[in-house]
């Protein structure tokens, strides 16, 4: 028994030492996390007042919310839109549905592509934000998109937030599929005061962008190093 107690105490001592080393290493590392931060935030209000439809200049109606309603609940049955038959469309897509349930607007690929080709994108009236980390961003992003890695948000927010505040529409994306980074980056922007009516998440993400054969920009923003074609 005495030996067992000794072993347990020894293990606890090692655990405490490991805890201390880990916290110290995290504090000193440029990749360190802020221990007190919630990296997976939720919106304070799931259905904010005045949340609009996810519409485009073309007037395409958001099939999941045909009428903007502050009291809309998740139990409302989503409607299938025949106008958006694309693979990443809003047709009862669980990702779109989830984002709507938590109070975020979404855009299907066709509308995102149309926005990107609009001249207003050149003057950041339509702002594209890539929510991924450096490696993924550098490997390829939507041309002209700004980076906003919400895990290290302090590095980007001072540049991105003023642009977002002045933009007519802000589109946030990540890889697509099960990637949640765009959701959390959008919530960070909302929590910093961005008008929810001007903020959209592109659930299809870069995966959908590439699948539609659109060019991606490699390296830094504005590098001009474009690489097109579907994956």
């Amino acid at each position, binding site marked *: 028994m005495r030996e067992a107690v*000794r*072993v*347990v*105490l*020894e*293990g*606890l*001592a*090692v*655990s405490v*030492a*490991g*805890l201390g*080393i*880990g*916290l110290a*290493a*995290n504090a000193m*590392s440029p*990749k*360190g*996390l*802020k*221990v*007190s*931060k*919630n*990296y*997976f935030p939720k919106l304070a209000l799931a259905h904010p007042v005045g949340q609009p439809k996810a519409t485009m200049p073309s007037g395409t109606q958001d099939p999941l919310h045909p009428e903007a309603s502050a009291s809309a609940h998740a139990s409302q049955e989503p409607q299938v839109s025949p106008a958006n038959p694309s693979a990443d469309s809003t047709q009862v897509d669980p990702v779109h549905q989830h984002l709507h349930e938590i109070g975020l607007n979404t855009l299907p690929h066709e509308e995102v592509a149309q926005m990107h080709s609009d001249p207003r994108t050149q003057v950041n009236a339509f702002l594209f934000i890539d929510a991924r*980390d450096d490696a993924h961003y550098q490997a390829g992003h939507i041309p002209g998109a700004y980076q906003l890695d919400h*895990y290290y948000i302090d590095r980007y927010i001072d540049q991105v937030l003023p642009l977002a505040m002045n933009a007519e529409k802000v589109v946030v994306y990540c890889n697509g599929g099960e990637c949640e980074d765009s959701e959390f980056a959008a919530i960070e922007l909302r929590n910093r005061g961005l008008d929810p009516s001007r903020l959209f998440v592109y659930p299809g993400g870069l995966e959908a962008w590439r699948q539609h054969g659109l060019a991606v920009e490699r390296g830094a923003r504005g590098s001009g190093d474009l690489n097109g074609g579907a994956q």
Partner: protein
Amino acid sequence: MSSGPEAMSYTPTREARQSSLLRQWDATGVPSLLARLIVGGLFIYMGFNKTQDPVGFLKLIREYQMIPQGMPVLLNVLAVTLPWLEVLCGVLLIAGVAVRGTAGLLVTMLVGFTAIIAVRAVDIYQSTGQAFCQIAFDCGCGTGVVNICFKLFVENTGLLLLSLVALWSRSRKFCLRWSLVPGRRAG
């Protein structure tokens, strides 16, 4: 128990002399050393991989949904400390410092990790109908996407058995400081 210089090495008592072959083999120090090197080396490798991507590890452990939503600090602390704890345990085992305590800690961690990985694999099996031994995912173990059957029944079981060897062993050979308890110096 012998004392003085004789205590510098493992000296079997009269009872130990009459013990099983396992104890005699353990007395050589070889089984413990092998177990410590293998387990220690793997934990240094796996832990170090995770220290290089704290965000990736944070996302992975979140997927297990073991930490309540309202406790982000606990999740963050786990994400930043667990990899370094693994590295530390690996270093201590290889160096032969606090061997039994470290081995005991690793046994505890391995049992816990194996259980939660198994639970997640069963969830995937039940929700997708996929054959259990075809299930593969990144378990946050520091080795990327792995086949779960291999992970559970080969890798983790093997590491657990080797950790138990280190825990059970009384050999103080090839150790810098077998025990942290003052007065019980290793030879």
